[in-house]
């Protein structure tokens, strides 16, 4: 009997994770696409340090960051993936969302300041949820984007 309850709880969490995770992901992608279109007029480039200084009268540092977590369904699928190996598609979209969100937050701050361009952008991500090498703890990945806004 208690085994059955455990299975039901597990399936319930899996379904909750799947439906809410998919819902949040769709909502997030919608908002990302909308904001990316809105901020498209400010170019963001990853070069700048080795070039001649851009023509500008003012410069400032901007950083955008986001901590993302997986849902129960994604965690379960990645466990299964670990058995056979290969691409973990569920985490790819997660990291893609995080990176784009961090870039957008950086850009929005820069635009609010009046930037005409964001140069020498760097992206960084690190796992803060668990110790390296262990599978304990939850998934929490910080993605940070930073660059120099010029105007």
């Amino acid at each position, binding site marked *: 009997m208690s085994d059955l309850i455990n299975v039901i709880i597990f399936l319930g969490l899996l379904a909750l994770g799947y439906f809410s995770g998919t819902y949040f992901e769709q909502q997030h992608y919608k908002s990302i696409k909308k904001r990316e279109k809105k901020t498209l007029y400010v170019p963001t480039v990853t070069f700048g340090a080795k070039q001649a*200084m851009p023509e500008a009268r003012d410069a400032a*540092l901007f*950083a955008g960051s986001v901590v993302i*977590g997986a849902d*129960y369904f994604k965690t379960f699928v990645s466990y299964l993936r670990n058995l056979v190996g290969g691409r973990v598609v569920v985490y790819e979209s997660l990291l893609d969302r995080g990176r784009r969100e961090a870039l957008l937050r950086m850009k929005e701050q820069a635009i609010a300041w009046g930037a005409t361009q964001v140069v020498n952008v760097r992206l960084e991500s690190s796992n803060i949820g668990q110790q390296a090498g262990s599978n304990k703890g939850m998934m*929490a990945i*910080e993605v940070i984007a930073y660059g120099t806004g010029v105007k």
Partner: protein
Amino acid sequence: MILTTLEGVPGQEIVEHFGLVQGSTIRAKHVGKDIMASFKNIIGGELKGYTELLQEARKEAVERMVSQADRLGANAVVNVRFATSSVAQGAAELFAYGTAVRVK
């Protein structure tokens, strides 16, 4: 204090170098945020509590770097880089470094 990720400040010239400056802080997450985050790990989405915590911590790391540059007499820090690393279960180090310079 001007901060940039470039090797100089646009429109201005570097007149003096002061070398590397850095600032770091190690933050632990508190239990309440941990519980919220593990709940979020079931339904998915951004862990807002952690985002705010790390943004605050990063601000402090930058402030420490800036005050170090201030003491040296610099008015800008160029080529700034950030790094984050998990040093222990539940604690993260945030780190900012750059080169202190005086620009004109």
